[in-house]
């Protein structure tokens, strides 16, 4: 951490060739992810936010413009060097977790260290440490199918963290989770952010986006609104219908609560976001298997049942 912005994109474009037709996905995006940033990229499907995510993570290269990740211009890097850069600088968190199915939580978390040439013993020790940090010390030898959705996502977050990256890129990290579990995952991300890791969230969920320190709104391959807070033009994509449907854990709570969740959480959200950015109450709310802990007693038991049933 030396004060250099983690990622600097300058007038970045990305054009796909589909059957000989040029499809512009990004049409000139400039963006700086500073050290310790907490940024939400929002926009509808097809707005280019996923493409931007892939570029920021060094999974893809821009067609035009310059993209500097960790002080290195990706245009000058070979595929192997880019892989190394991803390994050292970026941590990815995906909507669908992308855990290796037949591999334990510990070995899933240790995976990035394999590609750094770190020995097995040290990998396992570091992975255990990370799992402890995300509140899964007791799930270390479980396989993904033995874990709930929220637990799986926290394993994925531990995996993203294990190499000590400067940026966490989270693509719809709560998209496959019920809202209570999703919030606990966000709380975890926020506590990590408080420890100095920049977090970039890609989401189309207004509740999620509003928790970030700043938001970038994308439409048609351009950043249309870098202003924080919801904008009138974007109110429509954030209708309650866009909240993810009930997950397997939510069915326990009955239809009434599930239908409430879209609107009902918004009022209490301001305090949640505020506490998330501070370091204080976060450690309490991370191990959400403990019922009744944290600042939201009403949702505590629900969170426990939601996590446990997955």
């Amino acid at each position: 951490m030396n004060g250099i912005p983690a990622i600097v994109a300058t007038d970045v474009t990305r054009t796909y060739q589909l059957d000989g037709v040029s499809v512009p996905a990004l049409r000139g995006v400039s963006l700086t992810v500073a050290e310790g940033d907490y940024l939400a990229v929002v926009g509808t499907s097809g707005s280019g936010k996923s493409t931007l995510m892939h570029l920021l993570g060094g999974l893809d290269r821009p067609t035009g413009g310059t993209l500097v990740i960790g002080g290195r211009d990706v245009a000058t890097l070979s595929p192997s060097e880019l892989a190394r850069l991803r390994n050292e600088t970026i941590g990815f968190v995906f909507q669908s977790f992308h855990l290796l199915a037949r591999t334990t939580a510990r070995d899933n978390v240790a995976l990035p260290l394999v590609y750094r040439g770190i020995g097995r013993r040290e990998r396992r020790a570091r992975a255990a440490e990370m799992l402890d940090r995300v509140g899964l010390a007791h799930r270390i030898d479980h396989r993904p199918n033995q874990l709930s959705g929220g637990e799986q996502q926290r394993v994925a977050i531990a995996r993203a963290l294990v190499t000590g990256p400067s940026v966490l890129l989270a693509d719809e990290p709560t998209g496959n989770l019920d809202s209570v579990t999703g919030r606990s995952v966000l709380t975890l991300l926020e506590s990590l952010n408080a420890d100095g890791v920049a977090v970039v969230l890609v989401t189309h969920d207004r509740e999620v986006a509003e928790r970030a320190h700043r938001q970038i709104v994308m439409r048609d391959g351009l950043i249309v609104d870098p202003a924080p807070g919801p904008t009138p033009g974007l109110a429509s994509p954030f209708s309650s219908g866009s909240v993810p449907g009930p997950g397997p854990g939510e069915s326990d709570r009955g239809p009434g609560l599930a239908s409430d969740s879209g609107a009902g959480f918004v009022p209490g959200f301001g305090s949640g976001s505020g506490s998330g950015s501070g370091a204080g109450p976060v450690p309490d709310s991370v191990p959400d298997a403990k019922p009744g802990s944290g600042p939201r007693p009403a949702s505590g038991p629900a969170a426990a049942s939601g996590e446990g049933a997955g």
Partner: protein
Amino acid sequence: MRLAEAWRVALDALRANRLRSILTMLGVVIGVAAVVALVGIGTGTKQQIEQQVEGLGSNLLIVVPGRLEAGSAPSVSTLSLDDVDAVSRIVGDRSRVAVTVASGETVRAGNRSTFASMQGVLETTPTVFVRHLDRGSYLTRSDVNTARRVAVLGAGSAAQLFGDRDPIGRQITVGGVRFRVIGTFEPLGQSLGVDRDSEVHIPVTAAQRLLGTDRIDALAIRAPDRDRIDALGADIVETLSERHPDTDFSAVTQQQILGVLGDILGVLTGVLAAIAGISLLVGGVGVSNIMLVSVRERTKEIGLRKAVGARPRDIGLQFLLEAVLLTTIGGVLGMALGVTAALLVDRLTPVPAAITWWSLALAFGVSAAVGIIFGVVPAQRAGRLDPVVALRTE
């Protein structure tokens, strides 16, 4: 990524898809087993025949009419017993010269009958060909001179005609003519599936009378001096050519027979190995096919590994090692199966088999090479996958 790590990852992946890995391996197992077993049978047959020829001794010289060349038509013999006297003078010892006039005949004893190779011979045969009698005695010079109707039976023919009874002194008929059994041979066994014990030796004169001919098929000479065997052969051929101006003669030494047989059986072994090699090739294609399926099936995993820092070569290495592991494990299992099959054939059938180290080393090397060759394309494909596309795949 460290190489040891790559091996572990590859092994884990094979273990994760256990049934598929085993089925894929099966192609290689069968291919390698076929190569090892067939090469073993070819080698065993070759060794057995070479031993039999070597058993004749290195100073044996066989004289036959015609040229011993590939493609030459078999000649009708013009040799007669008079030629034997001429050859005996060159050799300087009549006891070192044997003749044969052979014919397949039905041999009967009482109500039993068998088909045997009837050999018209001189009394010198046991000396020249190193044959040992089980019972009785062999033909004498006077038997030959007087065309006496006496016979010596091969062990197989004796068993066929007389079972456990002693055949000595009993009557048999050969081609309808009555002979008296005076001796039996020790068993010889089989070669190339032919029973060498189904034979009847009778005096050459009697055989000529039976067949209505005065010819003999071939001469065999046990040379007194091994170092001069080629010169002796040349002398004999020259003398015979003078006596029969229209006929070519060839003198063949054991060394030459071994050379020709070695060539023929070497080709036989090679052809067997090649046929078996085709199944190994098919096994290799199977590995390639499964690896391609595996790459497709694990596209998401490849995308994730790339996202967390795997370089293209890390991914490529992982898949290449998987293919190599499949074929080398398959190769080792195949060798075990092939050796077992060869030993069973050797034990349970008359076909001999011999396992040689070079065939095992070759089979293992080929199976590892098959893994590399057929693993390269899927591995490259995996290594080059675009992580963005790979992660999006569901």
